[in-house]
């Protein structure tokens, strides 16, 4: 049984601590999830090399700085928490071919971040194939009571997933957000070039019980009941 947020009182703090199926979690304002007890950091939907794929497919020549920006922000989180393990929760790359075209500098950068820690790539729908970079490549992984996979499964218990890029707005523009109830958590997309779908709408809202919460990312994490 999950304890409902005493964490609401922490609304003024940078991050939001809560527990899901007895595992303690920190939803960070930057969109990463921190499991202090397991020394594990989780980020979802990095969509690295998205601008490259768009260009390759002839769709648009977007500013090619997204990979650099995403890695910079990830690097900052790693610096802060120094996790023993990193889980990338799928759609880490916008497609598998993108890795091939990734500039060496960016590959080296990734390798440097991976050094000295366990690194898990979860398979996503965009990158459903082994990654030719360091780290382990799996469909699912567990930590504490929780199972980590890319796409939520309807009847799953104690599950953390990504894929949907949830967002939610209070009074201003919509922000990427975590969504959770007592059974599951869906993470925001961490990648720079990622859109989103409203957490209050199908299919995201349908995956949660009536009593559910959104944790907005931004300058600080803000938790609100999900309407």
């Amino acid at each position: 049984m999950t304890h409902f947020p005493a964490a609401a009182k922490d609304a003024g703090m940078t991050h939001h601590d809560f527990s899901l199926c007895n595992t303690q979690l920190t939803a960070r304002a930057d969109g990463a999830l921190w499991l202090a007890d397991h020394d594990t950091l989780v980020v979802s939907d990095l969509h690295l090399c998205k601008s490259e794929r768009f260009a390759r497919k002839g769709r648009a020549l977007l500013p090619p700085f997204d990979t650099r920006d995403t890695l910079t922000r990830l690097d900052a989180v790693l610096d802060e928490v120094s996790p023993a393990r990193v889980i990338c929760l799928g759609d880490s790359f916008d497609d598998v071919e993108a890795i091939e075209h990734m500039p060496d500098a960016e590959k080296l950068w990734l390798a440097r971040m991976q050094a000295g820690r366990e690194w898990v790539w979860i398979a996503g729908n965009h990158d459903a194939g082994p990654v030719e970079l360091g780290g382990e490549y799996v469909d699912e992984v567990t930590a504490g009571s929780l199972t980590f996979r890319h796409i939520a499964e309807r009847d799953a218990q104690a599950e953390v997933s990504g894929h949907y890029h949830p967002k939610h707005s209070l009074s201003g523009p919509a922000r990427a957000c975590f969504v959770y109830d007592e059974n599951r958590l869906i993470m925001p997309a961490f990648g720079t070039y990622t859109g989103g779908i409203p957490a209050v709408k199908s299919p995201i809202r349908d995956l949660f019980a009536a009593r559910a919460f959104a944790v907005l990312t931004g300058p600080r994490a803000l938790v609100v009941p999900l309407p």
Partner: protein
Amino acid sequence: MTALPQIFDDWFASRGWQIHPHQRDMLERASEKALLLIAPTGGGKTLAGFLPSLVELADGTHEGLHTLYISPLKALAADIGRNLRRPVVDMALPIRIEDRTGDTSATLKKRQRVDPPHILLTTPESLALLTSYEDAPRMFRGLKRVIVDEIHALSESKRGDQLMLALSRLEAMCPDLRRVGLSATVEDPQALARELSPTGCAILNADPGPAPDIAMLVTDTPPPWAGGGASYAIPAVLEEVKRHKTTLIFHNTRAQAEIFFHNLWLANTDDLPIGIHHGSLSRDQRDAVEAAMVRGDLRAVVCTGSLDLGIDWGNVDLVIQVGAPKNVKRLIQRIGRANHRYNAPSKALLVPANRFEVIECVAALAAARDHDLDGDPKGEGPRDVLCQHILIRACAGPFDATELYHEVKSVGAYAGLSRAAFDDCLEFVATGGYALRAYDRWQRLMERNGLWQLRDPRAAQSIRMNIGTIQDTETLKVRMRGAGKPLGEVEESFAATLTAGDTFLIGGQIVRYQGIKEMVVEVTRSAAQNPRVAVFNGTKFATSTQLSARVLAMFQHSDWPELPRHTAEWLNLQREVSHLPRADRLLVETFPHDGRQFMCVYGFAGRNAQQTLGLILTQRMEEAGLAPLGFVATDYATLVWGLDPVEDVAPLLTADGLREGRDRWLQSNMVMKRTFRTAATIAMLMMRNTPQSKKTGRQATVSSDILYDTLVKYDPDHLMLRITREEAMRGLVDFGRIEEMLTRTSGRIDHLALDRLPPLAAPLLLEVGKIPVQGVARERLEAERAEALMKEAGLG
């Protein structure tokens, strides 16, 4: 010189018509390379444009396309088609006329490319699309004339620039092409002629008819001190409607039109048939009003700029302009709507909405009498449109960059384009133009054997799907719950402010907001007398520079016999207590009122610029520790309030400081992001429509805001950001007008520290649209709101 064939003479005679002198002139000079006809609304302008084509085509020897007609409105193209078929059928001329717009069926469009009609009626966007096909030269072979209707309206937007670029393509395919422009009265016909044809263009003027009879509506009650509703004038307006056959009642914004219409109906005890027409209403509803108008069933229509163009109503005999006209040219064009009876002067009444507008209306009347029309000189051809043009050119096949550059320079607005600026655009289109050269393998355009072409020819499909420069604001349809047809549309940002139970006006009805379902705003009927939320966003015109100058000049008179007494007394009082603003000095008043410290800056720079001034000023005041709380802006002044008095105003208003404040403020500003989205969409950095877009979900779309932030961070000199900054200066930010004010006053500031509210500033306190200063407070407000929601849910 072309004579009118007998059959045409007979046709005119059979209808009891006489050919107008300007129609004959157009015919006689039909062989000239370029002609611009200036004629008042409804002066047989369109027939004047087509007559030479009909005559040239009458013998049935021409094969293929002869005349291309471009209209700013799809509906107008269809309407012209119907009107033109009448003489063709009556005289049994062997002429095929078809229209081609976004609404034309795919089958017909395909057929038109293989077997074009003699006369094709279309829009700038459809023409641009036609030039993108590889077989365009075949379709346009034999084209003799192109007629641009309502060219004055097209010229005011990027659609005009796109059109002129498309004409330069046609010119390359058909060197004998003759151009004809049809325009309403404008301030600078020479400029319009240069735009139509920089190498020379004759101007023909139709008889403008007798001078219009314009006056200000005098009412028993004086107008209120502030506001824009003009409801005080409703009884007088109803009297005028009764006295005339058909009246058009123009408003500057849709919201004002809705409110006025609502109040008019409450007072309309005689049940006079009065309709409403504006751009947010559904097509069906607008069609119904237009049809009723054509049948002569309506005594009045409350409307906005949506009736500025298009179909001529036969029997309008009075135009009422509610609210100061803001712009003399628009006023004259609107008055022209009542000019349909030969030799009868068109009649118009101005209704000032508040006391200050009385002054503005009087100034506008004087300007109209002097034929002193206003208009801002058109800037350089926009480069986002050029980027799109290069892509359209690439769709049609490989091209030589130098050849295209010279072709583009032949267009008036791009005559000053440097080769370097052109190459910048080509580079952007080809590679993205980023500081980080990432796309060498995936360029959009490649140079092969000296010719530029699409790397992947399949890209042509998505480019064609994104042609155009019209930016749809994000709007949502409004529908009665359970009923089928939409009532109209509201802007998304307005819908976002509604909560269940709110009532608002649309299409003259009060409705109650229920919720948003599948991107449709659902409403129910409401019996409420006073809608709680009465305003939705609409364009707010800024008073033109020329009109502002006239008002400032009026202030220098020693007395004002032309003004009603109440207004003249108000100005006299201001002169006693403070100063009246002058064109060559900047008047700033500071005074305490109701526990707050106020500062009023009379820049006379127009609403948008005064608003920008407010944003920059409050930012600078916050930095200086002057604790501003908010501000409000009108066309003539910005009023700022805060906790502390401003003792030294000059440092806040230095030109350098304002410019620096502007640059910092602009960086993160929503206006910039909106401007960027427009430019990025037109230049096709973002592809709104893609063949894939139906398949991929919204997760895959990257918002333009993120692209903007990324570019600002990593590539601040990128072409798109440079374009965005330039556009923002002219558009909503309108910093150009602040620059104009700074030059005009040149540091000569009159600061008057008063001990109480001065007369001229008083109405500003009553203005709606006060803008709170948020700054760092925003995060705290969000957090408080989050906490309140948790508490409400019993979780706090």
